[in-house]
């Protein structure tokens, strides 16, 4: 088969020869449907994550205020968790916006997608691995600080005499409690399992896509 001899045949193909399906779908009805592109789906998932977090956040606040009445601890928790999540959401959203340039040359678009997706995945991995244990330890410390032992801080001598660190009730409570060791052990276990779980999850979700983008770029650059 000579490719040049097929040029006329190719150019003379009309819509009816090419149209998939029998009936023509109006453009307007296509535009009313949602895009199914990978990046649009990632954006949609990120928005879902945001919605889910807002619901969990609201419910937690309601629970803490209504049943626990921990006001300043709540303010602290809200501040840090909110700040961390805002940064997480902003950065992921920024990367997703940068990920695609459909009107650019195919090669530069592929490069852009690969570089940005790798950044996105790295951020996802680091944030996921750090944030889960961080939230666990932060919550643990707040609970620990609020334990009844803290109340006995007032029992410390107020006449200026020195007190050994181990005698301060909260420290005493931490070092002597079996709860503390259990808390640390669970925390370490959680950190390690989060690391491996994230690695597996990210590889499953994005590994193939990254590999495919690399292959496509290799095909474009390869001339030898």
């Amino acid at each position: 088969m000579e490719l040049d001899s097929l040029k006329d045949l190719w150019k003379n193909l009309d819509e009816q020869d090419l149209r998939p399906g029998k009936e023509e779908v109006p453009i307007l009805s296509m535009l009313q449907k949602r895009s199914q592109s990978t990046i649009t789906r990632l954006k949609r998932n990120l928005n879902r994550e945001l919605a889910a977090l807002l619901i969990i956040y609201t419910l937690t606040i309601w629970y803490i205020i209504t049943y626990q009445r921990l006001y300043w601890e709540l303010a602290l928790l809200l501040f840090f968790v909110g700040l961390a999540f805002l940064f997480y959401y902003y950065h992921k959203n920024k990367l997703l916006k940068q990920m695609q340039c459909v009107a650019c040359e195919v090669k530069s678009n592929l490069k852009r997608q690969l570089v940005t997706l790798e950044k996105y995945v790295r951020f996802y991995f680091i944030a996921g691995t750090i944030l889960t244990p961080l939230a666990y330890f932060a919550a643990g410390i707040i609970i620990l600080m609020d334990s009844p032992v803290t109340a006995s801080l007032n029992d410390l001598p107020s006449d200026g005499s020195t007190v050994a660190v181990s005698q301060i009730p909260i420290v005493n409570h931490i070092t002597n409690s079996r709860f503390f060791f259990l808390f640390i052990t669970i925390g370490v276990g959680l950190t390690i399992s989060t690391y491996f779980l994230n690695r597996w999850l990210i590889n499953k979700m994005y590994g193939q896509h990254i590999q495919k983008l690399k292959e496509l770029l290799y095909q474009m650059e390869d001339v030898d």
Partner: protein
Amino acid sequence: MHQHRAMLYKVCNLYCSSDYDKQDLFQEIVIQLWGAYPRFRGDSKFSTWLYRIALNTAISDLRKQKKHIKTVEPESLPTEIQDIQYNNEREERLQQLYKAINHLTEIEKAIVMLYLEDKSYEEMEDILGINQNNLRVKMNRIKEKLRKLTKSVEHGVG
């Protein structure tokens, strides 16, 4: 958009096998075109811009192809013997071309398509971002590959 429908269908036919996937890709290209149009400043030819969006959507999106059972509508079957002969010859060559192109990589498919559309190497470079010398080398290789592929198809191999 209506003027360029045929070109968009060609992209879909090259990158998808089932009618469902073709329609799906066509719809996605239309959505991407619609979204990108407000940013079109006329720095490149409209057709270049159009090809870039169509090929970027088809190549880089890496959508999963779904499996569907193909059905043939009775009305779409040819009714006259003359039609069958005319269509058969043309259809056969076209099918042969599609079969051979199917064995090419995503990037090679894009190059072949632009070549068949009679685009100059300069315009191909503008669309794909591959330099012209590189494109010429690739094009020669593709022609050779297609020649071998069609020979094996004719002899029932592959």
